[in-house]
């Protein structure tokens, strides 16, 4: 029996939920099944229909130009201006939907669901959110270009890919930040205009992406780091900052703050972009970063408030390997605490919908409906609403209204599918050794196949992982 529990934990807590037939091959080697997923390279998305950030933002250029011209022409015709303003979301929204569907497709069908969950973990760690229109079209390409290639690589490489990606630069406003003593700022000053810093990206890199909020850095560190990052920008655009191909990272020396900077007690004398690369290189392997990442992984895979011992072990694996991520994941898999007891984490809507889709083997044509179900359950795809990402504690997701919506959704799905899915047969296949006698009995005594399926999808052990 205990063996069954580990297979279900591997598939449901570490993976994205068991599909019918998944648990048997995992068998008694749950850890081996997870470790095998760390090989096989980057978990990339397979789809010809997806565009690169460069393609997407290049396609936006004519629309942006038109919008600028309409604005410059004055507000004489407000309706015309508003119509032009709508063209950008009209262009970006289908791109977003396309990416969201490909993302759901991969989650529902992946044979490396642990690797896929790690992609989601890192996308959420380095969160961008489509409620800022600038990233509406490129949140998906950001995950494909900056996260996926490095999920089985080194943390430092992912960090650099993220902080130079147009989506992050736009999301945290860095493309507009200007060194107060840069060439451009001096020229502007002669014309009586002040240009200067925007410290948003620098602060969130320190607080959220690397060291963590309690690591002891100061406001002075934030300001200095913001100066280091001036000039980190992207191509395309308009006016004073136009240059380079649209949608690619561009370093703009005329915007960069010259001179030596001190960040977290270390001097950085490098010129231009090399200065920022050096700071990120140090942050990526700093001890507080290791602890910050270890705590988040332990919260995700072990418990809302993880015990100290596994956090310590995972952090050591991070430090010893210099941020080699498969070594870090291995430390998570090897933590006995992660296998201690079943069903400790209340599923997020994302966890819930992926496990439901996998468990019921939903056909590809339902992917669009899964995307809209994210909205209904309060976790719209690529829209965490804050650079901190979605919260990862049960109390953030287990509200009364949230539970009721899961129940209503389960029921609606069950009404549709109950003639093709047998809950009594599915239950042990999805929940393995974590299936309780009470749930088994409630399914067996159900008044209809649809009701039986609803009872499976709303069972306490299916609501948790």
């Amino acid at each position, binding site marked *: 029996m205990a063996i069954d529990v580990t297979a279900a934990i591997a598939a449901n807590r570490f993976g994205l939920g068991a599909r019918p037939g998944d648990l048997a091959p995992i068998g008694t080697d749950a850890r081996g099944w997870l470790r095998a997923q760390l090989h096989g390279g980057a978990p990339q998305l397979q789809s010809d229909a997806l565009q690169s950030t460069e393609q997407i933002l290049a396609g936006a250029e004519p629309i942006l130009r038109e919008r600028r011209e309409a604005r410059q022409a004055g507000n004489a015709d407000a309706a015309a201006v508003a119509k032009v303003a709508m063209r950008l979301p009209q262009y970006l929204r289908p791109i977003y939907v396309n990416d969201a569907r490909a993302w759901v497709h991969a989650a529902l069908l992946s044979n490396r669901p642990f690797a896929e969950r790690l992609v989601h973990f890192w996308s959420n760690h380095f969160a961008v959110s489509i409620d800022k229109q600038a990233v509406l079209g490129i949140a998906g390409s950001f995950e494909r270009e900056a996260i996926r290639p490095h999920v089985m690589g080194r943390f430092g490489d992912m960090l650099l890919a993220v902080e130079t990606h147009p989506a992050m630069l736009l999301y945290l406003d860095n493309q507009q930040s200007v060194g107060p003593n840069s060439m451009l700022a001096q020229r502007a000053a002669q014309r009586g205009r002040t240009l*200067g810093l925007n410290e948003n990206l620098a602060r969130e890199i320190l607080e*959220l992406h690397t060291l963590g909020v309690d690591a002891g850095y100061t406001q002075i560190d934030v300001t200095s780091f913001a100066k280091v990052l001036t000039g980190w920008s992207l191509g395309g655009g308009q006016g004073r900052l136009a240059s380079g191909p649209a949608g690619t990272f561009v370093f703009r020396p005329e915007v960069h703050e010259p001179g030596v900077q001190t960040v977290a007690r270390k001097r950085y004398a490098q010129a231009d972009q090399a200065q920022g690369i050096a700071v990120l290189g140090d942050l990526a392997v700093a001890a507080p970063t290791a602890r910050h990442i270890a705590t988040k992984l332990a919260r995700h895979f072990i418990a809302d408030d993880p015990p100290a011992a596994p956090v310590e072990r995972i952090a050591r694996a991070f430090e010893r390997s210099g941020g080699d991520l498969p070594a870090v994941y291995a430390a998570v898999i090897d933590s006995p605490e992660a296998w201690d007891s079943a069903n400790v984490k209340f599923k997020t809507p994302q966890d819930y919908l992926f496990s439901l889709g996998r468990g019921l083997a939903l056909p590809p044509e339902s992917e669009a409906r899964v995307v809209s179900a994210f909205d209904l359950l309060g976790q719209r795809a690529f829209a965490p609403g804050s650079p901190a990402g979605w919260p990862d504690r049960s109390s953030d997701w287990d509200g009364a209204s949230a539970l009721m919506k899961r129940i*209503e959704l389960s029921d609606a799905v069950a009404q549709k599918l109950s003639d093709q899915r047998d809950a009594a047969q599915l239950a042990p296949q999805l929940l393995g050794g974590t299936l309780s006698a009470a749930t088994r009995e409630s399914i*067996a005594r*159900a008044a209809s196949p649809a009701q039986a399926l609803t009872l499976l999808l709303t069972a306490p052990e299916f609501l948790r992982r």
Partner: protein
Amino acid sequence: MFSHRPPRSDHAPDPLRQRLLERRRFLQLGLATGGSVLAARYAFAAPAVTDARFVFIILRGALDGLSAVPPYGDPDYARLREQLAIGAPGSAGGALALDGHFGLNPGLPFVHEAYGAGEALILHAVATPYRERSHFDGQDVLENGLSRAHASQIGWLNRAVAGLPAGAAHGAELGVALGQNVPLVLRGPAPIASWSPSKLPDIDDDTLQRIADRYASDPLLSHRLGDALATDRIAAESASAIDEPAAMAAAEATNMSAAAAAGAAAARPGVGRYLETVRTAAGFLKREDGPAVAVFDTTGWDTHYNEGGGQGQLTQRLSALDGALRALKESLGATWSRTTVLIATEFGRTAAANGTRGTDHGTAAAALLLGGAVRGGRVVCDWPGLSARALYEGRDLKPTMDLRSVIKTVLRDHLQISTRTLDTQVFPDGTVPYAADLIRA
């Protein structure tokens, strides 16, 4: 293989069974009377503990207090703010007049009317005890009521409602969160409901009964399901009880002010969603046996870039909030006179504009008390000024008032929570003084 015998429901804990029963009666009544369910009172099913109502609106992302309540009379304001400065009343895109020194952002016409009617109290240079600049820790302190982030998983408003006269013995929900989940400020042992609009079809009673039976051995799930059943019923009742003309007027007012803030239609925050939220909140709060407190969140206040002055992005967002507040007053009807609304944020923003026509994370901000119970028509603040020497760490508006003292005073004078509970349970860190005369006697 499917039994047709109804499952035994005597496993379900009593409150949950009670609610299922009430739901059934509610549905039957709805059918019997052609949808009119006004006669029925199911409710939070317990005697009221107070008739005072308190609403907390959290502005997540750090509201720029110097734009929401511009101190246009301060000699340093225009210089620091450059294009973001909001000018004196009467100037183009200028402030709405308050007291000759402070004005209100032009996106806040309803708040301005309420100020004129003595129902809006403006607080400035106010902050929680948090002195760093992380949104997420700042919001944690705003909600946990202590002096450090992550010091408690129980919010101050949960501790407060537990201290309502007879609150602990009340047994039914004392507060409601308008959202799918409960924000930290309301989390804790005192029972709290949450509600959000659902587009999903209703589930049949028998299935729900069986789910409830299955949850009988799971305290968290049975508790949550019970809460959901109670709030869904009340929301359905209030939806049918909405005063249509008032709702229409509210919608119109909101749309008008939002339309006035022209351009960027696509980026306009969800005015419509605010409206549904505040109307439902009002539906809960109006009930004699309803919850005493309600909380809802708004986001999008993190204006690092292109914040704008009297007609920019921030003004549009404020305008959406203003429309929601107007709708709240109209939906509350007579209950407005017994209501206090607190609007606050985790911290303010830099005194000076940053290099990208926005502002970065700062310290003190403005807060607002609104409602018929408020002794308003005043700006309450010990203004520290904006000179280089006066700024906190040379960059932010200096806090001269602790937000906890405002909250404490409202909880004492409005919700009648004892000072002993407030000083030992709700805000146990340090001895924060009470403020004077925030609430009408």
